[in-house]
C-alpha cells in the first residue's frame, strides 16, 4: 500500500490516489449497500406497482395484464375498507396517546422525582421485550373470566366484556398494547432533547415567578418541536408497520374488527396466496408511507440545519 510515490507527494497536494478518483472511490464505497438497497427496497417497491396490474399466476397459468381490475376489486372489497378504517382509528388513537405519555414520562424522569431509576427502568423495559412475547402476556390480561383484567374488575363488581372476542373492545385492547410498547421508546427521544435544554432557562423563569405549566407551554414545548416532529413521523410509520400483536392476539378477528392494513396484506399474500391482490393492497400502503415520507424529508432537513 505504501509505495515510494506517496512518500514523495508533498504536504500541499494529496497523494495521486486521492486526486485521481473521488468519483470512483465514492461509488465503489457505496456499491455494496446500494446493490442490497436496490434489490430489497427499490426493486420490490416498483415491482409491487407493476404486479398490481397483473393477475395472480396460478399453476401453469402465468400472470396476465388485467389493468385496473385488482383496484376495482379492492374498492369493492368491504374487508379492505374495514382494514383501512381500523388502521385510521388505530393510528389516530395510538399516536397521540403514545406521544403524550412519552413526553410526560420524559419530563418526570428528567426532573427530580423520587424513585427516578425505577421509573426510567419501568417505562423503558417494554422497548427491549419482543412484541411477540409481550402480546402473549397481554393475552392473559384479557382472558375472559380468569384474566387479570376480569379478576380486578370482577372484584369491584363491574361486568366485563370478552375483551378480545368482542368487536367493540378488541381494537381498543390492541391499541393499549401498542401504546404500552412504544411510549417508553419515544420517551428516550424526548429525554435526549430535554437534556439539551439549558437549566438556566428554568432558573430564570423561576426567578420571574413563571408557573411550571407556563414554562412548559412557552419554553420547553416549543424547544422540543423538532423532536415532536421526529417522534410523530416514527409513530405514524410504526402504526402501519407493526402487526405482531394482531397476529398473536386476534388474527384480525373478531369479524375483521382488528384487521390492520399490513395484516390484511399478510393474509392476502400468505394465507390466500393471492399475490396480485396483496400487491395492490401494498400499493395503498406505499402511497400512504410516501405521503408521510414527504413530511419526513422536511423534518430531516430541519434536523440537518441544526448541526
Amino acid at each position: 500500500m505504501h509505495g515510494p510515490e506517496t512518500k514523495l507527494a508533498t504536504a500541499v497536494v494529496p497523494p495521486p490516489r486521492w486526486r485521481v478518483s473521488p468519483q470512483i472511490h465514492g461509488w465503489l464505497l457505496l456499491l455494496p449497500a446500494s446493490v442490497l438497497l436496490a434489490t430489497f427496497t427499490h426493486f420490490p417497491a416498483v415491482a409491487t406497482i407493476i404486479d398490481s396490474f397483473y393477475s395472480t399466476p396460478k399453476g401453469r397459468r402465468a400472470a396476465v395484464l388485467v389493468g385496473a381490475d385488482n383496484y376495482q376489486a379492492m374498492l369493492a372489497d368491504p374487508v379492505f375498507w374495514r382494514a383501512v378504517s381500523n388502521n385510521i382509528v388505530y393510528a389516530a388513537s395510538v399516536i397521540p396517546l403514545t406521544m403524550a405519555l412519552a413526553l410526560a414520562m420524559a419530563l418526570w424522569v428528567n426532573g427530580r422525582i423520587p424513585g427516578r431509576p425505577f421509573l426510567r427502568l419501568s417505562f423503558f423495559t417494554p422497548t427491549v421485550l419482543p412484541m411477540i412475547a409481550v402480546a402473549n402476556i397481554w393475552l392473559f390480561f384479557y382472558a375472559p373470566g380468569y384474566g387479570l383484567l376480569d379478576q380486578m374488575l370482577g372484584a369491584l363488581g363491574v361486568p366485563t366484556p370478552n375483551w378480545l372476542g368482542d368487536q367493540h373492545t378488541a381494537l381498543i385492547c390492541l391499541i393499549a398494547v401498542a401504546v404500552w410498547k412504544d411510549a417508553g421508546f419515544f420517551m428516550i427521544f424526548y429525554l435526549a432533547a430535554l437534556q439539551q435544554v439549558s437549566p438556566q432557562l428554568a432558573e430564570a423563569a423561576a426567578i420571574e415567578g413563571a408557573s411550571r405549566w407556563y414554562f412548559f407551554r412557552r419554553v420547553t414545548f416549543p424547544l422540543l418541536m423538532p423532536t415532536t416532529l421526529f417522534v410523530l413521523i416514527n409513530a405514524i410509520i410504526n402504526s402501519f408497520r407493526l402487526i405482531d400483536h394482531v397476529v398473536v392476539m386476534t388474527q384480525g378477528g373478531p369479524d375483521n374488527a382488528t384487521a390492520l392494513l399490513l395484516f390484511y396484506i399478510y393474509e392476502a399474500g400468505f394465507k390466500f396466496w393471492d399475490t396480485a391482490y396483496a400487491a395492490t393492497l401494498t400499493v395503498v400502503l406505499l402511497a400512504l408511507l410516501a405521503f408521510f415520507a414527504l413530511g419526513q424529508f422536511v423534518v430531516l432537513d430541519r434536523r440537518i440545519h441544526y448541526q
Partner: protein
Amino acid sequence: MSALQASGRGGAALETAGAWLLALVWILPLGYALWAAIHPSAYSAHFVLDAPLTVENFVRAWNAAPFARYFLNTFILVTMILAAQLVLCTLAAYAFARFSFAGRDLAFILVLLQLMIMPDVLIVENYRTMSALGIVDTIPAIGLPYMASAFGIFLLRQTFKSVPRELDEAARVEGAGPLAVLLKVYVPLAKPVYIAYGLVSVSYHWNNFLWPLIVTNSVNTRPLTVGLQIFASTDQGIDWSVITAATLMTSAPLLLAFLLFQRQFVQSFMRAGIR
C-alpha cells in the same frame, strides 16, 4: 405565597403518585410473567403470598420445543445482520460524508427512502425475490433485506461529517489511502455511535417477527420469536405458566443485558435518536 407553595407541593405529590402509578402499570405485564413462570400452574391466575416456587415451568418449556436451536438461529441471525450492517453502512456513510461524486445527492435521497418504505412492508415482493434466489427458509434470507440499513448509513454519515477535516488530512499527508483513513481516523472516533447502533440493531432483530415468520418454515432456520409463537399457539393449549416461562426465556438475554447495562442502553437509544 405560602398557600401557593402548599398547593405547589400538593400538586407535586399528586404528580409523583401519578408517575408511580403509571410506572407500576408499565411493569405489571413483566411482573405477572415472572409470577406465573416461577409458580405452579395452579397459581398462574391465583395470587397468594404463600404460593410455592418452582423452576418446573422453565424445564417443561425448554423440553417442549427446540429452544436451544431457536436461540442459536437468533444468535446467528443478529450477528450476521449486525456484521453486514457495520461494514456496508460504514463504507456507504464514508462515501456520502467525504467523497463528492456524480449523483451523490440523488443516491442519498434513494437511501433515505428506506426509512419510510421499510422491508417490513415489502413482504410480498421480497418473498418472491427470495424464492427466485432459491433461498427461502434460510437464515440469510431473513437478514438480507435489512443489511443495507438507511438508518445506519444516515447515523454514521452524520457522525463522520462531524470529524474535523484536519485529522483526515493529516492522515492523508502521511500517505494513508482512503480505506486506511477510514479505519484509522473515522471508525475509532465513531465508536460510541457504533455501540449505540449495535444495541438498537440487535434489539430490533432479536424481536423482529413478521418477516421471519413468512420466510422460514423449519426448525433449523426459525428465530426465537417465530419459535415462541408456534409454541404458544399450537403446542400448549393455554398453560399460562409454561407460556410465560417460554416468553421470559426468549426475552431473557436482552432483558438481562438491559438490566445490567441500563445506562448504556438508554444513552445508546438517545444517541441514535439525536442525530
